[in-house]
C-alpha cells in the first residue's frame, strides 16, 4: 500500500521534472478536490480521468469535460442567456484557487453554482455504490439463509451491525426509541468506515479523501443535527429551556444555561464534523509527508534518498497501520457520539 503511495508521489515528482518538488503542494493537492482524477504520470505524460463539469450561470446549465482546461487555460462557450461569449477558467491562485470561475471581460471572477462531478464526487459515487451493493448482498444473504447462522460477508457485516446495535445504540439510547435511530447509526457507521478504508487504498478509483473533506463531515453532522433535534422529545427541549440541576440564578434574570444549551446543540455536530475531518486529513497528510520526505532528501543526495526511503517506508507503513485503526475508531466515535446525542434527545425522566 505504501509502495503505491510512493509511486503516486513519484509521479508527482516526475510530473514537473524541471520544477522543484514541493511536498506541501503535492500533499494539499491530494487532500483537496480536483476536476480530474490524476492516476499516474508515465514519462512526463499525465494519465488522468477527466470528469464532467456541471455549472449553473443565471439559471442555465453548462456541462463540459474538464479536459478543456487541460488543453487550454480557458474554456470559451456561448452564454445561453444573452448569446455572448462566456469564459470559464480555473485560476491557480486567489480566492477561487482550483475552482471553476467565470472570467468577466474586466478580469473579475465570478464563482458559478458548481455541481461538477469532481474527483471526490466520483469517489463518493463509487463508495456509495459499493456500500449499496454490499448491503444488497448481505440483505440477500439474510433473506436466503433466514435464521441460519451467518456466512462469509454476512458474518462480517453481522458482527459490525450487532456491534453498532448492542454496544453503541442500545447503550446510549433507551429501549423504546432505539429502533428509530438504528438505521441511521448503521448507515453512518458503514459510510464512514468504508470511506475511511477506501481512502487508504492509494490507487484509482480509490484513495480519494472523502471522509477527510469538511463538506462530507459537515453533511454527516447536519444529518445528526437534524435527526437529533427533529426527533427530540419534549423532555429534551424542556431541559434546554429549563436546565435541571443548576441554580436558579444561572437561568434568571440572565438565561445563561439556556443559551449555553442552545449553543451546545450546534457545537455538538460541529465538533463531530471537525473531529472526523481533522483525523482523516491528518492521517493522509502524515503518510504523504513521510513519502514526500524521500523525494526531498533524494534531491539533496541519492544515497540519502535511498536511506530515507527505507526509513520513510517503515514509518509510512506504521502510520498506515494506525490509519486502519483510526478508520475504525473514527467511524465508531462518530456513531457513538451521534447515538449519545440521540439518547439525550429521547431520554425519559424517571422521577
Amino acid at each position: 500500500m505504501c509502495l503505491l503511495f510512493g509511486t503516486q508521489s513519484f509521479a508527482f515528482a516526475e510530473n514537473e521534472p524541471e520544477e522543484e518538488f514541493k511536498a506541501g503542494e503535492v500533499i494539499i493537492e491530494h487532500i483537496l478536490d480536483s476536476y480530474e482524477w490524476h492516476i499516474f504520470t508515465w514519462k512526463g505524460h499525465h494519465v488522468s480521468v477527466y470528469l464532467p463539469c456541471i455549472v449553473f450561470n443565471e439559471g442555465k446549465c453548462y456541462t463540459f469535460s474538464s479536459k478543456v482546461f487541460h488543453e487550454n487555460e480557458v474554456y470559451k462557450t456561448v452564454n445561453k442567456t444573452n448569446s455572448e461569449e462566456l469564459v470559464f477558467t480555473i485560476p491557480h491562485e486567489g480566492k477561487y484557487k482550483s475552482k471553476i470561475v467565470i472570467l468577466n471581460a474586466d478580469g473579475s471572477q465570478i464563482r458559478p453554482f458548481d455541481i461538477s462531478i469532481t474527483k471526490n464526487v466520483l469517489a463518493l459515487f463509487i463508495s456509495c455504490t459499493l456500500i449499496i451493493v454490499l448491503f444488497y448482498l448481505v440483505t440477500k444473504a439474510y433473506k436466503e439463509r433466514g435464521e441460519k447462522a451467518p456466512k462469509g460477508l454476512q458474518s462480517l457485516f453481522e458482527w459490525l451491525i450487532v456491534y453498532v446495535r448492542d454496544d453503541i445504540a442500545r447503550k446510549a439510547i433507551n429501549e423504546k426509541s432505539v429502533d428509530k435511530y438504528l438505521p441511521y447509526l448503521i448507515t453512518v457507521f458503514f459510510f464512514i468506515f468504508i470511506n475511511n478504508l477506501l481512502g487508504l487504498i492509494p490507487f484509482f478509483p480509490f484513495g480519494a479523501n472523502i471522509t477527510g473533506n469538511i463538506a462530507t463531515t459537515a453533511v454527516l453532522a447536519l444529518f445528526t443535527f437534524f435527526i437529533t433535534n427533529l426527533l427530540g422529545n419534549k423532555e429534551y427541549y424542556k431541559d434546554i429551556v429549563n436546565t435541571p440541576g443548576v441554580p436558579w440564578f444561572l437561568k434568571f434574570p440572565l438565561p445563561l444555561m439556556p443559551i449555553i444549551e442552545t449553543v451546545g446543540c450546534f457545537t455538538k455536530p460541529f465538533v463531530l464534523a471537525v473531529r472526523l475531518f481533522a483525523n482523516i486529513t491528518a492521517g493522509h497528510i502524515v503518510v504523504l509527508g513521510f513519502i514526500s520526505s524521500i523525494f526531498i532528501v533524494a534531491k539533496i543526495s541519492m544515497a540519502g534518498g535511498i536511506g530515507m526511503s527505507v526509513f520513510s517506508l517503515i514509518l509510512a507503513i506504521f502510520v498506515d497501520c494506525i490509519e486502519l485503526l483510526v478508520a475504525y475508531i473514527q467511524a465508531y466515535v462518530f456513531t457513538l457520539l451521534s447515538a449519545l446525542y440521540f439518547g439525550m434527545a429521547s431520554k425519559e425522566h424517571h422521577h
Partner: protein
Amino acid sequence: MEIITPDFGFIFWMTLAFGIVFFFIAKFAFPVIGKTLKNREQKIAESLEQAERIHEEMQNIQAKNEELLKKARGEREDILNEARISRDKIIEEATAKAKEETTRLVESAKETIENERKAAMTDIKNEIANISIKVAEKILEKELSTDEAQLNYIKDIIKETDNQ
C-alpha cells in the same frame, strides 16, 4: 483556508449520495437484517430455554427412573424374600405332610400287620382249638372209652368245681 471551506457542489452530491445510501439501508436493508437478527436471537433464546427444559425433564425422568429402579429392586427383594419364605414354608409343610403321611402309612401298616397278626392268631387259635378238640376228642375217645373212666372224670370235674 480552502481545506476548511466546504464546497457547495460537493455538499450537494454528498447529501444526495448519503441520502440515497441512508434511504436504501433504512428502507430495504435494515428492516430485513434487523428482523432476521431479532428472529434469530429469539429463536436462539427459545432453543436455549427449550434445551434447558429438556435437560430438566431428562433429569426428572432420570430421577424417576432411578426411583422406579430402586422401587423395582426393593420389590424384587421383597418378592425374593417372600418366595424364600414361602419356599421354606412349602418345604416345611411338605416335610410335615410327608412325615405325617409316613407316620400314617407306618401306622396303617402297623394296624394291618396287627390285624393280620390278630387274624393269623385267630386262625392259629381256631386251628389249635380244632386240633385240640380233635386231640381231645381222640384222647377223650380213648380215655373215656370206659364208663369208669367217664365217671372218674366227672368226679374230678365236680371236685374241681367244688374246690373253686
